[in-house]
């Protein structure tokens, strides 16, 4: 019994790692007041970049770094379109998802079909090292948000950018930073999925994780540890859905597969009904002077 619980937890933590990176990236952007509906697109771009660079340089870390860079640039592009041209963030997010899916599919078929990453991240005590990094990042995000100046500024810019601008801090600069950092984290989540957990790219392999990350952040009321909780709730549901299928023959597989999503929705209803979004979330900011 204890063994199966431990193996259950181990599987949940291992397989939730990509989602945790993505959720943290989404968190960073949302705290600063930018809705990132395009996380799915940025993530799949990270998936492909990770595999291709890892394959060519034979180093998963460099692959991850490249994925951060590329997805970070997409994050910056997202930021530029939102901040400079005030394009509707939700629509833009959908556009990014389509571009991400289309771009990776096309490039993959044209150049990289079936490419194997070749190598992966090292592991420690049975977990890949990025899993530890992800948990470290949760703590780091908490420190940054509540113990550092940048966090106070980020939380403020998500609540009321006018106030931030009034004390002489550039709203755009903060939001660009959030977009780049958020994009990079999402990208690394993608790279870890394709090179840390798997070792190759498959089309649409992100399968909605960018959206689940949004739910996790909302569930977590825009806090790092809350977000971790949201990711784990989904992770529990996902792991359970396969354990139930493999274990009890009578369990209808459709319900098993629904489980993580139902659990997430229920958790959102139960714990986050009154969650307050950052007041300026998704609101285009126009400098008044």
């Amino acid at each position: 019994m204890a063994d199966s619980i431990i193996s259950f937890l181990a599987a949940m933590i291992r397989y939730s790692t990509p989602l945790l990176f993505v959720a943290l990236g989404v968190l960073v952007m949302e705290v600063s007041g930018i809705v990132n509906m395009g996380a799915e697109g940025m993530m799949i771009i990270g998936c492909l970049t990770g595999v291709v660079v890892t394959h060519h340089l034979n180093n998963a870390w460099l692959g991850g770094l490249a994925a951060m860079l590329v997805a970070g640039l997409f994050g910056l592009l997202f930021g530029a379109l939102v901040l400079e041209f005030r394009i509707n963030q939700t629509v833009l997010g959908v556009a990014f998802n389509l571009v991400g899916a289309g771009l990776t599919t096309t490039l993959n078929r044209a150049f990289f079909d079936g490419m194997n990453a070749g190598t992966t991240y090292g592991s420690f005590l049975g977990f890949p090292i990025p899993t530890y990094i992800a948990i470290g990042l949760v703590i780091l995000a908490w420190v940054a948000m509540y113990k550092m100046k940048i966090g106070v500024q980020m939380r403020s810019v998500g609540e009321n950018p006018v106030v931030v601008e009034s004390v002489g801090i550039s709203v755009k600069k903060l939001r660009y930073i959030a977009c780049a950092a958020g994009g990079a984290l999402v990208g690394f989540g993608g790279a870890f999925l394709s090179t840390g957990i798997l070792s190759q790219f498959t089309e649409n392999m992100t399968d909605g994780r960018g959206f689940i990350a949004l739910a996790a952040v909302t569930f977590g009321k825009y806090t790092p540890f809350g977000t971790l909780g949201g990711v784990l709730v989904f992770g529990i549901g996902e792991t359970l859905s396969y354990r139930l299928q493999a274990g009890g023959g009578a369990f209808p597989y459709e319900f098993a597969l629904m489980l993580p999503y139902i659990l997430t929705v229920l958790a959102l209803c139960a714990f986050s009904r009154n969650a307050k979004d950052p007041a300026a979330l998704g609101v285009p900011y126009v400098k008044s002077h």
Partner: protein
Amino acid sequence: MNFIELKEITKIYPGTVACDKVSVGFRRGEVHTLLGENGAGKSTLMNVLYGLAKPDGGTIFVNGKETEIDSPKTAIACGVGMVHQHFMLIPTLTVVENVILSLDEKKAFIDKKRVAARILEISQKYGLLVDPYAKVSSLTVGQQQRVEILKALYKNCDLLVLDEPTAVLTPQEIRELFVAIRNLIAEDKAVIFISHKLNEVMEISKVITILHLGKVVGSVNACDTNARELASMMVGKEVSFEVARGEQKLGGTMLEVKDMHAKDSKGVETVRGLNMQVRAGEIYGIAGVDGNGQSELIRGIVGLCKKTGTVLIGGEDMSKSTPRQILDKGVAHIPEDRQGMGVVMKMPIRNNLVLDTFYDEKFTKGVFLDWKKVDGQAGYLIEHYGIKTPDAGNPVSSLSGGNQQKVVVARELDKQPRLLFAVHPTRGVDIGATQFIHEQIMAARDAGCAVVLVSTELDEIISLSDRIGVIYEGVILGEMDRKDANYERLGLLMAGKRDEAAQTVGKEG
């Protein structure tokens, strides 16, 4: 010597000269009031002083030295601190975090303990007590204002600009604010006080500079003038404070509320078993600090939020009726949130003027609107109510606050209601428009309408109402006739101190 002197400041915005060669000096150790109507140029002048607007002409002297203030940072470095009318606070952050945000120090990590200690030190020195670790959203408006002042003082400001600081405060909070201001003056700070509440201005200021249409009308010492003179200078013409009351034609009970309960949007019960009666031909003023159930009371009566209890309008039970059914009983409503509930900002003025009567036969041709008739009605109301606009087709958002409110007042009063709810009818409206709106409300009362007036402005309540009820924590804590009302008694009731309020009656009696 002037600590800061503005000399011939000119600021031109497209179409208007907001400041026209304005010269004014501010000395340490005194409260200097800038008085003027909306659009007189006070805010623009302060924006220039705080580096938020670049002047088109003129110079600023700090300690006698010519200084260019091109950003709030420079202004802060020169010792200028600003408390905006709309607080520059992040509600989800604590007081300490808000102060830290405003400091923008070089260090990456923040030291909450050190900042909190200094906040406490300053707050004790000036009598601005507030818990440094409290979330701003949990503070009262008065406490939030203290945080704003603390933010400025933390940065060692020598000149503090207070932009309409009393507009949102209760009488008691205003007293506390004035105490703090006097403490500041005692420490040789300069204070610029912006307001158009003449009584307060007379009480707190040493020097008063009056602005009108971007120009300085005059600068006087408070001890050499009076409220009436100030008002005339401010408006540019004689002003009478008294609203002419016609003969009261008191009729039967028009509105009766029995044991009403209602909850606010957060689910907190804010109306807790309230009872009241209003008769035709009287103005019933509801005084009280914001958030004591006024909103939910009125919304509940007109059917805009859920409630329990009984509401009788003209003797009929309307407790379960829809807003439309209630309006059709001759009810008019000037809502509290003008821009959110009173008008549709992006819609043309003419549409707004028929917003709740457009379905009337008067304005329709079959299922279609008859725009000619709508235009006719709009033209009539614009002229009759003096709404200043070049074109009825302009969006309401193009109007000033006062004129927006006139649109609402015109629409509602033109229905010749039997029962009128006027909630904060003059909030954010300048003196000229205020006077006009007061006259219109009084005219409705003279015509036999029952009026429920909700306001946090005691001046307004006292000058208009025939009877006054004070709402506190969801019940009418005390009622009195016009002749028995005074600031002290109302203020104590507003603070929930019924016993002390009763003593004031005793003293007078």
